[in-house]
């Protein structure tokens, strides 16, 4: 029997609230850092899409695998990655989670099952399928989840992965985050049909879900992850959401004209998943405003400490710039 999100204990709901907020506050910090010219490279923020990473990763533990995208901070934090070491990485510091060798688009922590963000659109899909194969051979009920965008859904590798994962019944969950844009192209201008329907010809279940409703995402992922753990094969989830910030921070500095309507952005800001969960909690008398306020203070504290850690972290030693290319160097 599948559990039902609306029956979840309130601790579970508060934990999801806290994790979404952590992602939000870390990224608001990054937006300020970027505006202040403090970040060495491009950053793609996940603001407004947090419910997807959190609703899915709530079902996973450190031994499960995820692959992520160029917009990967949320997945990293939702899967239990350390915000301080992530920020240090994005600042290009030695104590960054990848020692300053990866940056925003490559945050990864294998000890937490985070195979990492990926600079290649669609690049994580095959990696997750491979991790799912390893999990299947290990036979211990682990699963692999690939997060990817609507733009990535147009890469052929999605069809390849659906085919093989269905044939081999791989414990794979494919989570498409449809945020309305493939870079600056509205999804509909580059995408035919509905992405969720792409599962059907392969005999794979497809679930479309409101990606701004963390309970709905939780519910869909619950079904998909259980199915994967039970050895029944892959599921495709299409989570409908919206990217309320730019594709990349500072895009206004190079775009000559707007590619979307401000009113549309404003309308979606009203569907923000974080206040939405707060309203749900109040409506069902599952939390008092003071409780959420206490969570907000705690998270703000964690983020402030993470920023302090990252800002004070030393820069990498250029003498080591050749890094760890090989495990068995000659």
């Amino acid at each position, binding site marked *: 029997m599948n559990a039902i999100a609306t029956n979840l204990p309130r601790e579970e709901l508060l934990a999801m609230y806290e994790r979404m907020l952590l992602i939000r506050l870390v990224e608001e910090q990054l937006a300020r850092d970027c505006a202040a010219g403090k970040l060495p490279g491009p950053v793609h923020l996940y603001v407004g899409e947090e419910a997807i990473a959190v609703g899915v990763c709530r079902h996973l533990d450190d031994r499960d695998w995820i692959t992520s995208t160029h917009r990967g901070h949320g997945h990293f934090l939702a899967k239990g990655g350390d915000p301080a070491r992530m920020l240090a990485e994005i600042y290009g510091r030695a104590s960054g989670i990848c020692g300053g060798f990866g940056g925003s688009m490559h945050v*990864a922590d*294998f000890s937490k099952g985070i195979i990492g963000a*990926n600079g290649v659109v669609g690049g994580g899909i*095959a*990696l997750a399928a491979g991790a799912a194969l390893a999990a299947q051979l290990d036979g211990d009920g682990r699963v692999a989840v690939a997060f990817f965008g609507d733009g990535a859904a147009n890469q052929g*590798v999605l069809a390849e992965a659906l085919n093989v994962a269905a044939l081999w019944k791989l414990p794979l969950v494919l989570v498409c985050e449809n945020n309305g844009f493939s870079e600056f192209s509205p999804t509909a201008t580059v995408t035919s049909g509905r992405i969720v329907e792409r599962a059907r010809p392969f005999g794979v279940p497809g679930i479309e879900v409101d990606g701004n409703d963390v309970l709905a995402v939780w519910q869909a992922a619950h079904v998909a992850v259980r199915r994967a753990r039970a050895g029944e094969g892959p599921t495709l989830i299409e989570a409908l959401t919206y990217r309320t910030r730019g594709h990349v921070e500072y895009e206004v500095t190079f775009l000559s004209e707007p590619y979307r309507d401000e009113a549309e952005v404003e309308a979606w800001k009203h569907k923000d998943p974080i206040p939405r969960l707060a309203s749900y909690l109040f409506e069902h008398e599952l939390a008092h405003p003071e409780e959420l306020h206490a969570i907000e203070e705690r998270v703000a504290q964690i983020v402030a400490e993470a920023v302090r850690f990252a800002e004070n972290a030393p820069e990498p030693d250029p003498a080591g710039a050749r890094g760890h290319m090989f495990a068995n160097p*000659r």
Partner: protein
Amino acid sequence: MARKRMIQAMNEALHEEMERDPSIVLFGEDVKASLFGDTKGLWKRFGPERVRDTPICETLIAGMAVGAAAAGRRVICHMMFGNFVYTGMDAIANQAAKLRFMTNGQIKLPITFIAVSGGGRSAAAQHSDAIHPVLANLGGIKVVMPSSPADAKGLLKAAIRDDDPVFFLQAAGRGGEPGEVPADEYLVPLGEACVRRPGRDVTVVAIGSMVRPALKCAEALEGEGIEVEVIDPRTIVPLDLDTILGSVRKTGRLVVVDEARDTCSFASHIAALAAEHAFDALRAPIRRVTVPDCAIPFAPVLERAVLPSVERIEEAIRRTLKHGGRS
């Protein structure tokens, strides 16, 4: 010792390593039927969990190799022909070659990719590329290019046990010539060149399938009292530069034979390294014998005309000997 073909030696290596290490999974297109024979019998012996036929989707299978390795498996991924590596190139160039580096060495990626590389069998332009220069330039991929059945076995076993992504390139143009293969277990370490034939007058570095014509040429010149030292790098990443430079310092002359197109061939790289590190020892301009910058043609006479031959190697050797007097 027994005489075996390279394909048989590879097949033995795969059987032995899969027996030895149950974490190994092998997959690729038609590995059960085995187009070349190297994976023959593995499916029967190790079963459908560990030996898997994939659909024709190189992007996915190369990427799955990376994901499975990142998740703790030792992987053998058969890419069939070298040219199909291009189809899987994102996973190889962007993922396999970089994931360890980008994550500051958090993981190892023990993957052996197997592919047939190079021409010589009228397979035409889309099945005949020598892909090693492309792979060597990626940085994070080791590249193994055996020239004999014995080396193929020892190198393949070493490649499988290595903790990094390795491309094992079996030369199409080598032909099925058998060679002695030791009966006892052995490994040939990556990064150790082999002096196939000692000589004082000129160093010929021959890569992979080029070792055989280089040796033929050396034998032919012996009658004239010309001593050719033939060096087989065996792996180009890592490259045993010391052995090459040691020989060049001894002979003062260098010819590099490579089945790659001339522009950015691996011969060009070896020539550059020798010029940089052993310039003082050189008594003649370095010569490269490569494929002209064209695709590989189909008809046997056309194909023979572009691939390095014994005659072209001989010509290059003679030209280097015109310079600087004999030692």
